[in-house]
């Protein structure tokens, strides 16, 4: 008697173009009915389980039972922001009174990179981590990745949510996982040659960096085993068509991307058409807000993405400001009904830029410069793109009273402080007083010298 052949999925499931056709193509009315039921449940849950939301609701004169429609939810539930959570976490580490579950339920701890000043602590329960991982799978599957594939993680794991959640997703899909944690770039190349994975997970700029180093070693990665590359953490092949071309050429592979927000979810896996991302509406309810008026913007117009996560039962996030500017569409020729963000994130409301995979906020750099004696208020941040990486140079005018022989020491001090606070090394260069441009109205601090095709759409 012979055993039946072992298979991870039935032929019927394996042949599906969707990870879950039922929900990915669900009519809008049904999706919205589900969202209403789920945001109502979330309002009750957050109000009953966290002092933070009880205070927010009470201050707004709101009870969870007041939310009878999605419009009620958008208009009545106060928007929340990362800074509130960080403030409360600093008051009572690690999670302040934003935690909705007993600590025993916190199965995984991550942190943001802290580029706004202080890292945000992110607790995930086991349920949350399963849901978070699932979000990646929609994107993996849409790109063509299957359980027979092997993932290579070119990433030092640390506390970053992005690639832990990608790992949870690869596990859910049932793929083989190879960790490149701890290896340098050459080590990654050698590991890929030796173990022959088919999927590369990395930040998009690091994928280009690996390819560059491989070329220097005489290795052509377009001939390697990699069939797919998948990216998150900074603008990638969906947001930057020029980058897609470079990655796909260098790796001889199909490149995918998803939009993730560490504390929320891998909220929007890439559309198979490659021109945008679809909000995972099983995990997230989202709408677009005019950052000035607070009102909702219409479909097709650019607005700030406001999200509510169902995958954050440890630290609920309701009407959470992402500061990401997106153009939302309700229809897509790929047949998915989940909201689509054309070109992923088009820009930031707070002038964040990504340098070597680390988000750097203009305000964070300004805050550091402002603390350094001898640095004047006249400075600019110059963005460049060299060898596959974004870079930032801080050009500052020393105070006129500082003698030129002290300028380099001040620059070195500034560079060290930036590295210590933001975990990224920036070039800091003094320039002679009164050489930087002066502005009558808003000061233009960011000078973007990156090729246009490598910038987010609104930065071009």
């Amino acid at each position, binding site marked *: 008697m012979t055993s039946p052949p072992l298979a991870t999925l039935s032929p019927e499931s394996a042949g599906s173009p969707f990870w*879950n056709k*039922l*929900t990915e193509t*669900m009519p809008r009315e*049904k999706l919205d009915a*589900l969202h209403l*039921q*789920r945001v109502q*449940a*979330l309002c009750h*849950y957050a109000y009953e389980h966290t002092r933070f939301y009880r205070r927010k609701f009470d201050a707004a004169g709101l009870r969870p039972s007041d939310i009878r429609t999605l419009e009620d939810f958008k208009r009545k539930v106060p928007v929340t922001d990362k800074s509130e959570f960080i403030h409360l976490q600093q008051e009572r580490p690690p999670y302040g009174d934003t935690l909705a579950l007993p600590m025993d339920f916190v199965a995984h701890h991550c942190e943001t990179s802290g580029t706004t000043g202080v890292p945000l602590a992110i607790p995930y*329960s*086991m*349920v949350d981590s*399963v*849901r978070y991982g*699932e979000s990646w799978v929609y994107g993996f599957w849409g790109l063509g990745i299957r359980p027979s594939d092997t993932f290579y993680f070119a990433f030092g794991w640390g506390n970053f949510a992005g690639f832990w959640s990608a790992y949870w997703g690869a596990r859910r899909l049932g793929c083989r996982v190879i960790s490149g944690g701890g290896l340098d770039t050459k080590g990654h190349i050698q590991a890929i040659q030796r173990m022959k994975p088919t999927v590369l997970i990395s930040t998009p700029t690091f994928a280009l960096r690996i390819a560059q180093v491989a070329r220097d070693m005489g290795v052509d990665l377009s001939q390697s085993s990699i069939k797919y590359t998948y990216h998150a953490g900074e603008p990638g092949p969906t947001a930057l068509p020029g980058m897609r071309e470079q990655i796909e050429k260098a790796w001889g592979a199909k490149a995918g991307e998803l939009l993730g927000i560490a504390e929320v979810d891998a909220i929007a896996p890439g559309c198979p058409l490659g021109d945008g991302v679809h909000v995972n509406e*099983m995990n997230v309810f989202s709408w677009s807000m005019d950052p000035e008026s607070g009102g909702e913007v219409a479909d097709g117009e650019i607005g700030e993405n406001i999200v509510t996560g*169902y995958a954050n*039962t440890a630290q609920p996030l309701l009407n959470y400001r992402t500061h990401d500017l997106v153009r939302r569409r309700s229809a897509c020729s790929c047949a998915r009904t989940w909201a689509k963000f054309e070109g992923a994130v088009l820009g930031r409301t707070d002038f964040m830029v990504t340098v070597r995979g680390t988000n750097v906020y203009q305000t964070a750099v300004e805050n550091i410069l402002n603390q350094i004696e001898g640095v004047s208020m006249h400075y600019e941040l110059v963005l460049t793109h060299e060898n596959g990486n974004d870079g930032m140079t801080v050009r500052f005018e020393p105070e006129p009273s500082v003698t030129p022989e002290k300028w380099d020491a001040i620059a070195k001090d500034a560079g060290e402080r930036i590295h210590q606070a933001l975990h990224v090394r920036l070039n800091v260069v003094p320039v002679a007083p009164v050489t930087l441009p002066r502005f009558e109205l808003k000061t233009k601090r960011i000078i973007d010298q990156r090729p246009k095709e490598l910038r987010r759409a609104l930065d071009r």
Partner: protein
Amino acid sequence: METQDQAKLLRHARELIAQALAGSELPQIEAILRNADMELHWALWNLGEPVALRPELEYRTTR
């Protein structure tokens, strides 16, 4: 199989797990059963069925 039929089977499976959970005195087995129930709850969620935000929030009625 129709979605409603599949959902009905999943709910029945959760009822059986709840019974097994109620009689469990082995932490290993209880942990496995809770994990199984979490996955079934998640399956119902992804079929668009009306379930609670977390599986444990339903334990008062299913256990």
